[in-house]
Each structure stands twice: as C-alpha cells, then as structure tokens.
C-alpha cells in the first residue's frame, strides 16, 4: 500500500511523548450509571456483600516515543477503551501517573457527541471549541475538514439527516484535521465505506510519517502487523505482552484460541450436566 512506514522504524533518541507509570483505574460499583437515591440506600444496606470496586486497569506501564504507532489489542472488556480514556485525560487515574507532552486529539467513538439539531458546519466549530482549538485556527481549517469529509451539500444540513457513514466521516475528518501531536483512535478504521476507509488509512499513515504519536485500539490485526511499530496486548486490565506487532498478535491469537477451547469445554460440560 503506502511506502515508507516500515514497522519498527523508530528513530533512536526520539523524545518520549507519553509516559505511563504503574497506571491503575478503579471503577466503583456503587456509583454506577443512572443511580437513584433508592439504589444508593439499597447499596448502603448491602455494604459488605461482594466487591465494591474493580480495577479496569492495574500496573500498566509503557511509553510512546515521537513517531511511533502503538496498537492496543486484546479481548473485549480487557480495558483497552479505558486506557485510551485515561490517556485522553477523560478519566483520572486511581493510581500511578500519566505524563503527556503535546496536544492530544482523541477519536474514541466516531461521531458521538455531535449535536443532531445543528448543521455539519456548526458541529465542526463546536467540536473544535470542545477540543480547545483556537477559533481562528478552526476557521482556517474548516474548508479542508469539509473537503475531506466529502459531504457536499449536506454540510449545511442538520446532522440528524446524515447517514451513519457520513457522521463517521465528519468525525474522523475533524479529529485528524486539528493536526494533533498525539492521536488516539478507537476502532475507527473499520467505519465508513471502502473508499473512505482507504482515505482514512492514508490519513493515519500521513500522521505517522509526520512523526506524530498514535495509539490505536483495533481488532484489525492486519493493520496492526502492517502499520504499527509496536503492540500491547491487554488482558483483564494487565499488559500480557508487549513488543513487535507480529509477535504480540501471535500471542493474542494463541490466547484467544485457548479461551475459545476453554469456553467450548465449559459449554460441553454445562450441556452434559443438563442431560
């Protein structure tokens, strides 16, 4: 596909842009979504039953140097998205620390957070303001954002008239257009039609070549082995493997096979017991 991004091509002595030391993120099970006073009282009464919190991430340490493209892989619920949220500063660590040097742009779920009633243009300005961009800067970039998203006349129509693909295109276009030092991507390469997918992959590679740091969560193992310098395998909130993408992907495959085999055995046992 695109030349010149051979994996592992990290310049020696490149500065560290992200430094994560012994990161832990704990979720309280008492304070969960849509809590009401009634449930809180119930929780108070049941205080001693069961664990009150769980660690979504624990003892996670790694660093990212400028120009690196790091893939985070792992099974569902391993803490991949939590890790990206912590890197983006959306959630604060419960222990350890994260040191980030440079402007971060996070694209954790494409198109989420758009205001459906507003036009695409208004949403671009609003998103830029939410990300802390200077409005003059944003005004300068709006044309290239619109062009990249390829929405045509729709740019001045409310977002609620957009298709899912159009929203995804606009979201990707905004997040990458602000020229971040560090880009966090969560499962975004799989969205959109084939043409846009190719376009967005080319854009990510462009950012890689511009020696920015990229952390991405993906299930696309081909992308990982082809375009990432390094990969981290997360399992149950811990780093299970780290290093060369091909090796880490192989370990991930092996582990998923084991899990699959275990699950099959368990399912067989359940069925046998039922008989």
């Amino acid at each position, binding site marked *: 596909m695109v030349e010149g991004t051979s994996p592992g091509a990290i310049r020696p002595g490149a500065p560290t842009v992200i430094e994560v030391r012994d990161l832990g993120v704990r979720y309280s099970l008492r304070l969960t979504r849509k809590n009401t006073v009634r449930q809180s009282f119930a929780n108070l009464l049941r205080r001693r039953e069961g664990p009150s919190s769980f660690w979504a991430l624990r003892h996670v340490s790694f660093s990212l140097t400028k120009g690196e493209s790091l893939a985070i892989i792992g099974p569902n619920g391993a803490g991949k998205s939590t890790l990206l949220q912590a890197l983006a500063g959306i959630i604060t660590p419960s222990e350890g620390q994260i040191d980030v040097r440079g402007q971060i742009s996070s694209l954790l779920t494409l198109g989420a*957070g758009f205001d459906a*009633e507003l036009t695409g243009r208004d949403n671009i*300005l609003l998103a830029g303001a939410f990300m802390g961009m200077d409005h003059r800067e944003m005004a300068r970039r709006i044309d290239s954002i619109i062009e990249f998203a390829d929405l045509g006349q729709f740019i001045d129509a409310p977002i609620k008239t957009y298709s899912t693909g159009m929203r995804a295109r606009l979201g990707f276009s905004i997040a990458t257009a602000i020229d971040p030092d560090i880009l966090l991507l969560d499962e975004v390469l799989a969205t959109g039609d084939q043409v846009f997918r190719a376009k967005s992959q080319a854009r990510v590679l462009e950012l890689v070549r511009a020696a920015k740091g990229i952390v991405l969560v993906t299930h696309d193992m081909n992308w990982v082995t082809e375009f990432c310098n390094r990969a981290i395998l997360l399992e149950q909130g811990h780093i299970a493997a780290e290093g060369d993408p091909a090796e880490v992907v192989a370990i991930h495959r092996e582990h998923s096979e084991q899990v699959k085999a275990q699950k099959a055995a368990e399912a067989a046992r359940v069925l046998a017991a039922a008989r």
Partner: protein
Amino acid sequence: MDITGEEIAREAPASLRSTAIRPGPLGLIGEALRETWSRRRLIRYLVQADLKKKGSDTVLGNIWWILDPLLQMVVYVILVSVIFQRTTPDYPLFIFAAILPWKWFTSSVYDAITSVVGQERLIKQIQFPKIILPTATTFAGVANFAFGMIPLAGLLVLFYSDRISPTLVFIPLIAAVQFVFTLAFSFVVAGINVFFRDIANVSRHALRLWFYLSPGLYSAAAIEKLRETNPLIADVMAINPFYTFFESYRNVIYGTPTGAPSMPLWGHLAAWLAGSVVLLVLATLLFKRLEPAFAKVL
C-alpha cells in the same frame, strides 16, 4: 524534523496526571476561572446552539418565550381574582413582575440539571472542562428573561401606562444578583444529577413549593401579617432569596398598590449579592470535586 525533548516541552507544556496532584480549594477555584475564561468561545457557541434549537422545534418558535409568561399570568389571574376573589389593584402586572424572573430561574435550573448528563457521549470522548456546560445553559437562560421584557413593555404601555416609572432602569441590577444566585444553583444541580437522577423529579415539586412560599402571587405584607401569629415561619420565608428578588422587581415594575413608584430592597439585595457570591464559590468547589468522577459514572 529534529525536535528535541526540550523544544517539545516548550511548545506544549507537559500535562502530568496523577492521583498525587490534587489542587486545594483555592487551586480548584482558580482552575474553574481559567477554564471558563479560556473556553468563552465554546460557551458562546453553546449558547447560540441552545437558542437556535429552542426556537426551531415549535411552530411559533421563540414567540413562545413571549406567550408563555403571558399565558401563565392569565392562569394565575383567573385563579386568584376570579376564584379566590382577592382584589389587588392591577393584579395582572402585580404577578407578572414575579412570573418573569421565576420563569427565568426555573428554566435555567431545568436546563442545568440535564446540561451535564445530556452531553454524556461527548464527556466520554473528549477531555474538556465540564463546568462550561451549566455555565452555558445559565447564560442561555438569560435570553428567556430578555424576551420576557417584550410582553412586559407591552403590558405597561398598553394597559398600565400610569405605572411606568424611571425605577424600571433598576431591573438589570436585580437581574444581575439573581444571575449569580442562579449560576451557583445550576452548578449544584448539574453536578449532583450525574449521581442521582432523582434531582429532575424532585426539583419539579420543590420548585413549585418554593414559588408558593415566595411572595409572587401575594405581597410581602402577607408574610408580615403571618409574623404576628407565627414569627418563625415568617423569618424563614424572609430568608428566601426570592423574597428579596420578587419584592425588588415588583417595587420597580409595579410600585406600591396605589401606584407610587418605589425602590428595590437595596439592603437585602446587597446581602444577597454577597451571599450569592459565597454560594457560587462553594458550588464551584462542589462541582470541581465531583467532576473527575463524571466520565466514570455516566
């Protein structure tokens, strides 16, 4: 492109996040002020978006902001002067002076309650100062009051021209104090509603009770009369900030029952300005303390 570590550090200051760094109360207040100032453009966009949306989803659009208080006034006039047979001179104007600021307050509070939870998806996607959200809805609420000046002017010019007085210029002063109080209240409900969604249900009834306990439909003289039999309740009712606000608005808009113009309750207003600033500081602290948990709970 050879950029050294020092250069990067100079270009974009490192942001170090850890549990060890927890700013104290003064640090949090300073942070909130800096965040609000640096994101003033975002507040503006949010206010504009809010006004655009509120005007667009009904046939009559923003006309409702003019009709709403008038219709509410009609309801209360029918209730009080026709059913209860109370006779206060120029009663429609008498209650209109309280309905306008009250509608402003309640709509701001309702909008603030959903301001943070309504942006759930964004909060989980981008890091930004959440205090912007209730701030923006409270600023947008001012438009509600500003539009209310149109029917007020209409009422005064068409029906009560003898009550027009120069004291009307004090309305913005009273509104400024009410704004600070509303902002403080908005921070509290916006923050707490993330953890307890009951706030929305409770507030509907609490606010209604609050209105009836405030001298909106009746004058402060009624509370003074209550003092003879029940001084404690009268004292509690007089502590209510809307005692001060309603009486002040009414003094400058309606005047005395005989029609003579009168002044806002200057002493009470000054006390509530100071009190609201203190409340705003405490509310900001509360909000900033709760803020780190938002993304996890939502």
